[in-house]
């Protein structure tokens, strides 16, 4: 099998030079993606550790494992880490950074040094936030609602807010880089209508990054200033309006939910087309649906505030506008299933995750419509129903897509195949574990169990135990890939340039790609997902 030619290692981005400096000062988008992969994985485990502590506390009705104060800090730190330091950067900064320049046939991102700066800002923000957590923690919830965060909380709010502020600029610069790269760096012939959907969805996510993130940056800065100088912009005792904070916060943080899911939707589009051997059904609609989700996402933020004291008329407007988002989301789900219809489907791990994504995202999205309805929201607001809903979207959607993409492009990133059988097992564990964890929380919430308490009435114990058991399965499902990905670096089979026989420019260069991505600039003369004309080989590595 391995001929002499293959054993002579081709120069690639991993072996072109060595040493810690060549990594910390790199401007190569592929190395920066690897830096992000390592740091984001660390944050994922930290956030996951806090989640496990929460679930262990909730194993029994009494608050016996941790005090209520500690519990408040646990769910706050879980939220801050998972939202700002894992979910928002995960797909764009790791997979997008690696794949988008390859997909558009460019040598690098438009601003390589800015790209490296983004990573440093991410690290600076993470270290600042972690310092605040280590030295005492934060207990405001990840939402930093005023006036609790500005006046009453005795924890390290300023440190955490500044950490998120800094990480926000990392996100802004990443988004800026994506938009400029996709506009200006496309290879000859790669028109917008030929652009892979992953690029479209990253573009849509980047719109949210550049337009939304600055608003939360200034808002958190105001919270920090208010805490430090008692200036009273949000403090009702000083004449301010705490609801204004919620407006400004959710102007970013609601679109940010779409920012977490949109790049994942792009991953799913790539995978569904590849493993169905078909062009994505209604390509233009799926592409434009991404943009529509990004734009509509900015029109709906106050549906988080229905019971906060906003006017009923505004609530009515925001409730109606919220339903708009269902349209492009449904377009995507229908088009993915239509793509699979009569396709020749192969059940490789990325596709299994994609199935999981489509199902779980649909549940998460539909329960979102419940919550956008004024009457139902009043009933289930601040209950476990909300928790279950957004975990279905963020974990069932966002993390599933991240795992799908990681498996799909791992051969491209490392040149090695992961062990398929183990990967399928872990995909199954993640799916089962996830549903066992979070489906009971829908019922808990419907029955009225409020969120953010470390103790609960005994009648809720059965469902809580089920949920904690599911979390343990989920944890195993996440630990396994960590092990076999590392294992594959040394023992994995060589992937070759295109193990999935996929279309797309990233598969036309070697794995791992050379530092300059392509030996000569590719010229695109074909449509995206042209699987009809792709040689009909079996996918060689499937078992």
């Amino acid at each position: 099998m391995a001929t002499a030619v293959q054993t002579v290692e081709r120069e690639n981005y991993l072996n072109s030079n060595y040493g810690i400096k060549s990594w910390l000062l790199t401007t190569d988008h592929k190395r920066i993606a690897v830096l992000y992969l390592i740091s984001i994985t660390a944050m994922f485990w930290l956030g996951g550790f806090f989640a496990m502590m929460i679930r262990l506390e909730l194993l029994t009705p009494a608050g016996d494992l941790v005090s209520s104060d500690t519990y408040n800090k646990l769910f706050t730190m879980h939220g801050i880490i998972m939202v700002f330091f894992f979910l928002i950067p995960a797909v764009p900064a790791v997979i997008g950074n690696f794949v988008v320049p390859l997909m558009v046939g460019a040598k690098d991102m438009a601003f390589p040094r800015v790209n490296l700066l983004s990573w440093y800002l991410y690290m600076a923000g993470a270290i600042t936030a972690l310092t605040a957590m280590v030295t005492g923690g934060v207990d405001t919830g990840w939402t930093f609602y005023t006036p609790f965060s500005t006046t009453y909380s005795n924890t390290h709010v300023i440190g955490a807010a500044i950490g998120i502020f800094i990480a926000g600029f990392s996100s802004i610069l990443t988004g800026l880089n994506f938009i400029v790269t996709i506009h200006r760096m496309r290879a000859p012939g790669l028109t917008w209508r030929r652009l892979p959907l992953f690029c479209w969805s990253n573009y849509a996510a980047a719109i949210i990054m550049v337009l939304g993130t600055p608003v939360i940056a200034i808002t958190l800065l105001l919270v920090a200033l208010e805490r430090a100088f008692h200036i009273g912009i949000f403090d009702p005792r000083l004449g301010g309006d705490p609801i204004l904070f919620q407006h400004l916060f959710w102007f970013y943080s609601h679109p940010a939910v779409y920012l977490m899911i949109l790049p994942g939707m792009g991953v799913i589009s790539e995978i569904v087309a590849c493993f169905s051997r078909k062009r994505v059904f209604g390509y233009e609609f799926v592409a434009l649906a991404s943009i529509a989700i990004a734009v509509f996402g900015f029109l709906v933020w106050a549906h988080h505030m229905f019971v906060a004291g906003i006017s009923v008329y505004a609530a009515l407007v925001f409730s109606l506008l919220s339903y708009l988002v269902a349209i492009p989301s449904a377009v995507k789900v229908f088009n993915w299933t239509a793509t699979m219809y009569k396709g020749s489907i192969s059940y490789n791990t990325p596709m299994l995750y994609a199935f999981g994504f489509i199902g779980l995202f649909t549940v998460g999205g539909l329960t979102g419509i419940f919550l956008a309805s004024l009457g139902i929201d009043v009933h289930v607001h601040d209950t476990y129903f909300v928790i279950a809903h957004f975990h279905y979207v963020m974990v069932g959607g966002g993390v599933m897509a991240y795992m799908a993409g990681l498996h799909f492009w791992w051969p491209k990133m490392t040149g090695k195949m992961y062990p398929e059988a183990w990967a399928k097992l872990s995909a199954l564990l993640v799916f089962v574990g996830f549903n066992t964890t979070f489906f009971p929380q829908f019922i808990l919430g419907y029955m009225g169990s409020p969120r953010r308490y470390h103790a609960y009435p005994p009648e809720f114990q059965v469902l809580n135990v089920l949920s904690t058991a599911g979390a343990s399965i989920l944890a195993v499902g996440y630990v396994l890939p960590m092990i076999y990905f590392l294992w594959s670096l040394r023992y994995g089979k060589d992937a070759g340039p295109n193990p999935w026989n996929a279309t797309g420019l990233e598969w036309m260069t070697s794995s791992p790609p050379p530092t300059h991505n392509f030996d000569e600039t590719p010229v695109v003369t074909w449509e995206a997902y042209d699987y009809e004309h792709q040689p009909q080989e079996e996918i060689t590595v499937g078992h």
Partner: protein
Amino acid sequence: MATSDIGDIQVAERALQHHFADMEQQRDTSSFGMWMFLLTEIMFFGGLFCAYLVYRASYYHAFVEGSQKMNITLGATNTAVLICSSLTMALGVRAAQMGKPKLMVILLLITIVFGFGFLGIKAVEYHEHWVNHEFPGPSFHFETGDPAHPATDPQHTEIYFSLYWAMTGLHALHMVIGIGLVAWLVIAGLMGAYTPHYYNPVENVGLYWHFVDLVWIYLFPMLYLISKKHGG
């Protein structure tokens, strides 16, 4: 002329980064990147504008009383200073485009002088407000200065001053950064970094400078000129 042209092109070739096909792509890309950055800046200030709009709509009289304390002469002078600095900046970019590095350096130095002039006048105003306890926080104390019309709503006037300090402070911070960037252009310009074939940094810093001017053009009427009519 021909030899200097070749020299210019060599400078430009050195400035071409490896991942761009040619200078035109690099120039358009860097300019677009700068505009995208300014877009994020608009949203950054936008959060403050939103807070201003909400409170001004809710507590109009408190805002009027607060704005009476503004020194319109100094504010208008500062507006004029910034407009002048924008002119010298625009002419400086033009000099760079036309390949007149010495003229560019002179114009940029004048821009820096205007920039410091703005900050100096702003400092005088800040000092006045500080002395009069018009800085939000525990020491805040507000009086209209007219015994016939005592302050009607000092609590919300404090919000006016919170926003005044936050908005002008953030703007002043941008001015400081802008002066630093222009100083960097001056140094690089003296070392002959820019030619008609390569002047992206000059153009981009120019965009930034004009943007900061633009923000002030809105801040001035919003904070100083709310209404001459007495709030009482």
